């Protein structure tokens, strides 16, 4: 039971701290598998268990203290060279880590549901694992795990994804903290900072950049410099301003980089996953990671973590063959899964490569036809066929296992990655293996947009929503039902939305042939043509909310500070199309779209 008099703040700190310790110890345990003599790693794990034991005793979590004590005892015997760090010992230690996580989860759960005084659940397999820890004699034989303990990992796998996801959040956020534990002497190199303060700092630096460019672009300065032939006092001033500008730009780069974190934490989690999944499926897999120092936006780490878990599971389950099959196919007995990350052209690419059996085009096509996803694969490129595995409900697994094959995976993978404006591509060769390329934007904070003018107002249209823009000819335009307008472009009929009418902007161009039509769509809806006066150019903007005082505004996704320091509104294209089709700008199909509240 949770002590009734527990200090809640203390307990929360304890949960965070303990998770950090455990994350650090897990990484050390995995490293130990390769270098069983690394006493520093043993110490790291020992210290982690010891810390958990000490603090949990202080708080009054008796069960966790007892468990941490047993786990710690095992490690202390390894440290004292009483027993060797064998595979069996490693498995026990890793299980202890999982058990501690489960115990922490139980505390968190109880804290949330019942508050202090609530009863704590005893995780499955708890007693069996204690017995195994106590009974472990260091013999090289298989661990003396009773049946119940052997069953524990299966149960654990069921909860695995959720537990890991929860864990993942913390792990990413507090990854640096975890590093600190491992590094020991690097304690002062990292500082935890509240994200809202960091965001505010980035905002302020953005403002500084604008203010700086206003000064350097000031007409008086430019004019005076010209008038004076770039000599004298103004020349000096210009030099100083340029110097300040350099500093400001450097500051901007620095502030943007603060949101970036290396993929190391995510990769570490996957290393553990590969080990567990491969063991379970009886496959021998070597997992190689590369470029784990590649950095991506902190917020993106959480979003791509789950898809990667899924893809790695799939690669081992469906990709890599069992040892016998591999030998028969003339391959090395040990399969190889390689995860690498690198930057290329303004994106980060995470590449997952296996040397397994590869994707079979015909098999996928057959299945897709069976499921009614396509009529025939004729005229489709290999890559288009491979993309079909991302369709909802598509799964090529012949038998459903609890590792993968529930058919809910790949479409979620794709959706998650697309939610952060990323893309997945597949290359595969039968018999040789498959490579997944996940392309991610460097940062979430910046939206690529096109600045358009409507009357005196300016709006930002996200580039991902824009298909093209053109100036229509009279013959392309038609009125439907006396009110709705449509434009026909290469045989496609699209409703026209007059943005100035929808947003009630005065002074905009009324004649479409003198203005521009921008074809937009968010992928799910019918493409729509927005009438705007002109394009002002491309811009990268930082999307911000309009402030709590206003709340959600139909058709507007948010605001952005433009180059001149004023606020520009970012359009929500999906919403605009829905708004327009609710009957305001096109009376053509009013019944098909949702009404706007």
């Amino acid at each position, binding site marked *: 039971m949770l002590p009734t008099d527990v200090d809640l703040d203390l307990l929360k700190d304890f949960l965070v701290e303990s998770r950090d310790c455990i994350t650090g110890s897990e990484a050390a345990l995995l490293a130990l598998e390769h270098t069983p003599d690394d006493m520093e790693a043993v110490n790291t794990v020992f210290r982690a268990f010891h810390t958990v034991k000490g603090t949990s005793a202080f708080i009054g979590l008796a069960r966790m203290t007892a468990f941490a004590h047993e786990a710690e005892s095992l490690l202390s015997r390894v440290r004292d060279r009483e027993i060797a760090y064998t595979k069996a010992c490693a498995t026990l230690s890793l299980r202890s880590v999982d058990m501690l996580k489960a115990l922490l989860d139980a505390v968190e759960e109880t804290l949330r549901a019942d508050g202090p005084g609530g009863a704590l659940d005893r995780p499955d397999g708890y007693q069996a694992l204690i017995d195994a820890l106590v009974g472990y004699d260091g013999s090289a034989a298989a661990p003396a795990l009773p049946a119940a303990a052997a069953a524990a990992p299966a149960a654990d796998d069921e909860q695995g994804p959720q537990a890991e996801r929860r864990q993942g959040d913390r792990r990413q956020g507090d990854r640096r903290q975890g590093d600190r534990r491992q590094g020991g002497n690097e304690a002062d190199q990292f500082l935890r900072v509240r994200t809202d303060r960091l965001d505010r700092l980035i905002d302020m630096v953005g403002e500084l950049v604008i203010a700086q460019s206003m000064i350097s672009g000031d007409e008086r300065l430019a004019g005076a410099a010209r008038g004076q032939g770039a000599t004298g006092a103004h020349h000096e001033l210009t030099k100083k301003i340029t110097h300040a500008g350099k500093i400001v730009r450097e500051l901007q780069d620095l502030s943007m980089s603060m949101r970036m974190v290396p993929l190391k934490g995510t990769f570490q989690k996957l290393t553990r996953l590969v080990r567990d999944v491969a063991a379970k499926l009886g496959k021998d897999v070597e997992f190689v990671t590369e470029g784990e120092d590649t950095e991506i936006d902190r917020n993106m780490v959480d979003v791509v973590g789950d898809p990667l878990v899924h893809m790695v599971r799939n690669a081992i389950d469906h990709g890599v063959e069992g040892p016998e099959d591999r030998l028969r196919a003339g391959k090395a007995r040990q399969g190889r899964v390689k995860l690498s990350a690198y930057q290329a052209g303004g994106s980060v690419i995470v590449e997952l490569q296996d040397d397994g059996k590869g994707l079979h085009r015909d098999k996928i096509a057959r299945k897709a036809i069976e499921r009614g996803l396509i009529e025939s694969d004729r005229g489709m490129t290999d890559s288009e066929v491979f993309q079909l595995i991302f369709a909802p409900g598509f799964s090529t697994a012949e038998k459903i296992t609890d590792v993968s094959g529930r058919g809910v995976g790949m479409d979620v993978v794709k959706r998650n990655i697309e939610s952060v404006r990323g893309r997945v591509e597949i290359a595969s060769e039968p018999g040789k293996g498959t490579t997944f390329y996940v392309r991610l934007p460097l940062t979430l904070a910046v939206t690529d947009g096109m600045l358009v003018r409507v009357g005196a107002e300016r709006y930002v249209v996200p580039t991902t929503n824009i298909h093209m823009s053109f100036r229509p000819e009279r013959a392309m335009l038609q009125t439907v039902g006396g009110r709705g307008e449509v434009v026909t472009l290469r045989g496609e009929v699209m409703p026209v939305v007059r943005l100035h009418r929808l947003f009630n902007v005065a002074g905009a161009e009324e004649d479409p042939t003198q203005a521009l039509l921008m074809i937009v769509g968010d992928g799910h809806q019918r493409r729509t043509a927005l009438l705007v006066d002109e394009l002002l150019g491309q811009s990268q903007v930082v999307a911000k*909310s309009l402030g709590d*005082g206003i709340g959600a505004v139909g058709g507007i996704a948010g605001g952005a500070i433009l180059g001149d320091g004023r606020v520009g509104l970012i359009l929500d294209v999906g919403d605009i199309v829905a708004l327009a089709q609710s009957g305001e700008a096109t009376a053509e199909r009013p019944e098909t779209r949702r009404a706007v509240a």
Partner: protein
Amino acid sequence: MSTATPTPAAQDRGGKFLTFYLADEEYGVEILKVQEIIGMQPITRVPRTPAFIRGVINLRGKVIPIMDLRERFGMESAEAALQGASEADVQAAEAVRCIIVVQVVNPAGQAVPVGIVVDRVSEVSSIGGGEIEDAPSFGSGVRTEYLLGLGKAQGRVKLLLDIDRVLAADELEQLAESESVDAAA
């Protein structure tokens, strides 16, 4: 109203108020609610919002909404009031118009900055609880629920605003609804 004795609650209402003008009326907001006063600047209009939301501005990297109190209280707009005035008068009026950024508490209990456009800022005055009286109900104009009370200082009456209520989001929504109904009618 001069005979009304202040209730104990009224005592608590005393404090320092930043006062400002809308037309000829002097209003006050608690000084603790005021974040800063900034000059008038270009406001980005936000479509499909009620008329008293003038739009948004960039306050040092943060986007904040700007409300028009004249519109909120159903007063003649500042532009309309200046119609027919000489150019010098218009310029003078525009020079003193400014935005008071106040921290209002939203329903979630967080303080959020909102700008209010006022004709001109007057002064900071200390008004004791004893000098504040409950607002009588007016026939029209400012709704009394927006008022903390009426403050008397230097022989003048100041309308002390309960700014959280003036700018409360649910109020805004209700108003937006009623306005859109009006517009549809």
